């Protein structure tokens, strides 16, 4: 099956099996280095990508659903401004996830930040886009998508809080 899509900013035409999971396409056909494992449905949460700008588990997306989609893996995300916010938060805490889950956890944090800072309304935010009050229980539930236990949940929530601060500050500066 021929599928046209955009991966990491490159428009590609892929010739792959129609039901092949996106995670395998990225790993085998495109040799993307940011994904390392295929857990066969065990929900390890290590294959997170941004699918049309929203975080998604790439092992749950079949090839026929990626037609015309915009996919962003950690490889291109790490060159963006948004990544800087999260990287600074890691530095501020003085800890970061282990190499095997670093990419996935960073993209999950990005997804949480996006939800908190957009105006569409999110259950984690009591007043979206203005002064966001973090619902820690809900943030913890989102972070639990990745099953790696390398970091304390309290630390991860702190990272989200700090990164959210940087993100809001940057947005305010851009608006003014």
């Amino acid at each position, binding site marked *: *099956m021929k599928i046209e899509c955009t991966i990491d900013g490159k428009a590609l035409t892929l010739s*792959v*099996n*129609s*039901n*092949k*999971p996106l995670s*395998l396409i990225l790993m*085998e056909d495109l040799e993307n280095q940011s994904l390392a494992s295929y857990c*066969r*449905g*065990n*929900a390890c949460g290590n294959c*997170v990508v941004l699918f049309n700008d*929203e*975080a*998604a*588990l790439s*092992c*749950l*997306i*079949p090839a*026929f*659903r990626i037609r015309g989609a915009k996919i962003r893996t950690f490889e291109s995300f790490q060159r963006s401004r948004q990544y800087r916010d999260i990287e600074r938060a890691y530095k501020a805490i003085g800890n970061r996830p282990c190499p095997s889950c670093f990419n996935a956890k960073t993209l*999950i944090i990005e*997804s949480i930040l996006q*939800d908190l800072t957009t105006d*569409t*309304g999110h*259950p984690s935010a009591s007043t979206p886009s203005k002064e966001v009050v973090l619902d820690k229980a809900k943030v913890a*539930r*989102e972070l*639990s*998508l990745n099953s790696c236990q390398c970091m304390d949940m309290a630390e991860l929530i702190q990272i989200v809080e700090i990164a959210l601060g940087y993100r809001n500050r940057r947005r305010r500066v851009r608006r003014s």
Partner: protein
Amino acid sequence: MYEGVRSPLIYTPRTIGEFATVIRRHPQAILWAGGTYLMSQPDYYPGEAKDGIIDLSHMEELKRITRNDRYVEIGAMVTARQLLSTGRLLLPPILQQTLQSLGTQVVRRQITIGGALCISDTRLSLSTTLAVLAASAEVKLYNDSKVTTHWIPVAKLYDKEGKLNLGSKSALLTRIRIGLEFGDFQRFVLFGDPIRKSSECGIVALHAKREQNSLSKVQFCVTFPRKAFHISKDIESKLSGSALPIHPEKVNSLSYELVAELTKMHNTISDLQLERARRIFESFLHDLNSQSLS
């Protein structure tokens, strides 16, 4: 890797009429809603899909949420996330709690209502909750050249082991209807992971209406994925009309009646699952008592 695997054909109907044409030609094709359950199976890829896959994501008719004064109708392709965000003020708390229990927000973006109800061999929490809310599902059956439409209560979509039984291989669940008159006592508890550790999991839901000092319209369902989908008419009728608070001895005897019923009808449920379900059921009734006394 897997270069020799044959690529299944994908059909993308845009209307229910187009779907009817496709399903008649390919009655064995796999219906693809969100795909979260299908893709989380260990043998999904490389796998067999000889008659192809029918992708339902292009059917706009299945993505609508409509409401009137009496009920809300939810299209089968509405995702759990859409339903949670658009129906926050409309839906009963028990349904919101159930939708949140389906997974994290990332996964809820993909899970569809119809897909969660139509898993063939295992029952997730949504079926249990919709059964106690007395929801019904519109099912279109495609037999030869005839299409028949039926409204079937969600509680009757499954057999006692929880296997989907739509009455025909070629069938499409198009929408569900939930009445907007809810009881004021709603409880839902999920223990364990219904997909990864289904042998330890259980789902218990109770819905009832308190009128003055008595209970009415009691709906109770307990589910053990891959093992049992149990609606106890006996316990429901014993609880309906009961005066509140319910005597602790009656609570105790009812909970053991539930265990006896489950053991008699489903012999694969483990003792731990039974005990947890029993205690959760008891806690619901104690909760009911404490609310009636406050």
